[in-house]
């Protein structure tokens, strides 16, 4: 067993989960909603990237940027059209709506382009790198590099820009934020834009690595990323990154050890264990009591 390749596979898969999980956790942190349409935004990103590469003949990086730009707009629209008016409704109403939006995106995609899968163009051939006596796929390294850059960029936005600080302020106390003159609506739109852009990028990366994309591809990675977000502590940005990596590594090792049939089940077992024994997750904050 090629341990370095397995490790890298795990990290690559994990960083895809992490990128999707960030959107779940940021949106949850600010509007307390599990946006179940998020996996479908990831799928749309994969398709936009695919059309960018094939129909528009764009390069790899321009295709990712195009996917991120369009998915961020879609994310903002989803919030504006479907969730905003439900902000003060019972949570179950918003959750049901999220599932509705998810189905709407999936089946609209099928209606427009049909259910058939597509094969991503092979951009990096079968390039292999030899490091420390191990052989690894070049694209795994590229995925890792892009994920790291995006996560660093997100950290920078959240901690050093005005909008990032506003996002943290609103997620802690939206009403106090309004008293500062911060527009809660606009801040929430930004959160959806950022989270969706990351999911869009993850979609392109996923297509590149696993080559096959199809309109229902968002379902399982979406759920896995949700588990990653819960594992890391929903609402916590570092938590989503670590949760994604842990989940990716665990799944890869389970497969590598010959139990690939139960690979998906393992993720859900992790979810159940976390919910039973550590519902706040690895980096979760204790629920703040209102005085």
């Amino acid at each position: 067993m090629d341990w370095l390749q397995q490790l890298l596979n795990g990290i690559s898969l994990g960083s895809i989960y992490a990128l999707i999980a960030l959107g779940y956790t940021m949106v949850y942190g600010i509007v307390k909603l599990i946006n179940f349409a998020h996996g479908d935004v990831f799928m749309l990103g994969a398709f936009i990237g695919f059309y960018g590469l094939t129909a528009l003949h764009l390069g790899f990086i321009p295709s990712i940027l195009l996917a991120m730009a369009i998915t961020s707009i879609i994310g903002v629209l989803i919030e504006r059209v479907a969730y905003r008016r439900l902000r003060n409704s019972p949570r179950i109403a918003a959750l049901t709506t999220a599932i509705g939006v998810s189905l709407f995106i999936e089946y609209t995609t099928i209606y427009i382009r049909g259910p058939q899968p597509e094969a991503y163009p092979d951009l990096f051939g079968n390039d292999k790198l030899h490091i420390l006596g191990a052989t690894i796929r070049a694209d795994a390294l590229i995925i890792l590099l892009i994920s790291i850059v995006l996560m660093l960029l997100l950290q920078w936005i959240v901690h050093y820009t005005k909008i990032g600080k506003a996002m943290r302020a609103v997620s802690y106390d939206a009403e106090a934020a309004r008293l500062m003159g911060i527009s809660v609506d606009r801040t929430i739109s930004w959160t959806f834009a950022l989270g969706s852009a990351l999911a869009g990028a993850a979609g392109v990366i996923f297509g590149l690595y696993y080559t096959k994309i199809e309109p229902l591809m968002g379902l399982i990675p979406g759920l896995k990323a949700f588990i990653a977000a819960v594992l890391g502590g929903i609402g916590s940005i570092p938590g989503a990154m670590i949760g994604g990596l842990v989940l990716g590594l665990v799944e890869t090792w389970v497969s590598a050890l010959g139990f690939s049939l139960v690979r998906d089940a393992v993720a859900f077992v992790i979810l159940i264990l976390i919910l039973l024994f550590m519902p706040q997750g690895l980096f979760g904050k204790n629920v703040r009591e209102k005085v």
Partner: protein
Amino acid sequence: MLSLESIDVFYGKIHALKEVSLIVDEGEIVTLIGANGAGKTSLLRTISGLVRAKNGVIRFRGEDITRRRAEEIVAMGISHVPEGRRIFANLTVKENLEMGAFLRKEKAGVQEDLERVFALFPRLKERLRQAAGTLSGGEQQMLAIGRALMARPKLLLLDEPSMGLAPVLVQTIFSIIREINEQKTTILLIEQNAHMALSVAHRAYVIETGRIVLSGTSEELRQSEKVRAAYLGG
């Protein structure tokens, strides 16, 4: 500067404010005293746009702000230090102060106000990079007031600044309130600690179950039998 004309506020069927009228003139400290649940906090929340009045008019410097959004009201020059301080515990002290200046574009003015806040609260300067949640109660109150001042308000609304603080700190906070007022900021102050409130305020209103029942200069209210019996402990 600020005037309320027969304001009515409802929470569902509960009539929280009943035909409340009051006036705050430029340069004044006005205090509103009353028991828990009398409607003091509701009144401030209505002024700052967090709660909508059902009837009545609120005017600020001549302009009707009754239906304005909270974000617009801040921009017009009213800053609200809410009950329980409500600082952003997950942000650093510096970031909290920056959030206070969220709407301002002129960097020089913001820097000037930052210096002013440090002059009023030297403790905050020592703790700039610390997460605000790690501050003591008194420091959090200082931060909440400092954060509000960063918007360079013309009118400052203070909701129970002495709540939960040790007596020494209450003294400090009140002397700072006086200092802020001397720097030409008008203040509307809510307090349960009527003693302290009447000692700094120029004028006062007494609110009972959502209705203003008494008003006058602080001196007059301190002499009033009713106020002495109900709020000053005989």
